[in-house]
């Protein structure tokens, strides 16, 4: 069984440019999470989806961040415009059901904003 797939693995952009990350969760997993992990810190939740519905986006900086999960499968996370402080690893995770404790993470996208 394939795990959570994220792309790209690495991205370097200049500040004020847009950037997008893509996530394909494990097949059949209805719950999808986007986390941001700064260096030396634990992951912090940005947004959680149940199928195609964003059920917790309270931590998403909505002035520049947006996300979508069309058809309740793949998801994209976008930043526009990017700022220097957005440099971090963006992790996608999925669980088989709402509230499931066994979250499976992708390898993440390492974003560097210069």
């Amino acid at each position, binding site marked *: 069984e394939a795990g959570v797939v994220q792309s790209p693995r690495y991205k370097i952009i200049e500040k004020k440019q847009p950037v997008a990350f893509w996530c394909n969760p494990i097949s059949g997993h209805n719950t999808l999470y986007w986390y941001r992990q700064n260096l030396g*810190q*634990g992951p912090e*939740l940005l947004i959680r989806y149940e199928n195609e519905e964003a059920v917790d986006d309270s931590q998403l900086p909505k002035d520049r961040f947006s996300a979508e999960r069309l058809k309740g499968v793949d998801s994209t996370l976008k930043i526009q415009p990017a700022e220097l402080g957005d440099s971090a690893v963006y992790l996608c995770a999925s669980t088989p059901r*709402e*509230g499931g*404790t*066994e*979250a499976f*993470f992708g390898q*993440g996208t390492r974003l560097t904003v210069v």
Partner: protein
Amino acid sequence: QKEVEQDPGPLSVPEGAIVSLNCTYSNSAFQYFMWYRQYSRKGPELLMYTYSSGNKEDGRFTAQVDKSSKYISLFIRDSQPSDSATYLCAMARTTSGTYKYIFGTGTRLKVLA
């Protein structure tokens, strides 16, 4: 005060040592307690999760939860160089009928051959 506190380390031990990793928390509403292992440039990988106070063992790993003290531990027996990684504790509580997960900062562990 952070909801979850974890010593960032680094922690260096010789091969074969028993490793003890710990987290404290302040919110008694946490119900699930998890440990993740994260290798460099990889995503976190779930090692263990527990629901109640007490011990849970899986091979060389033992997770311990003490809800009265708001303290959780992960013990690694016969540590191996391949155990060198960052270990993240995570806790989940319900909010508005759904689960909210909070991660610790992670402890970097290095097992020396």
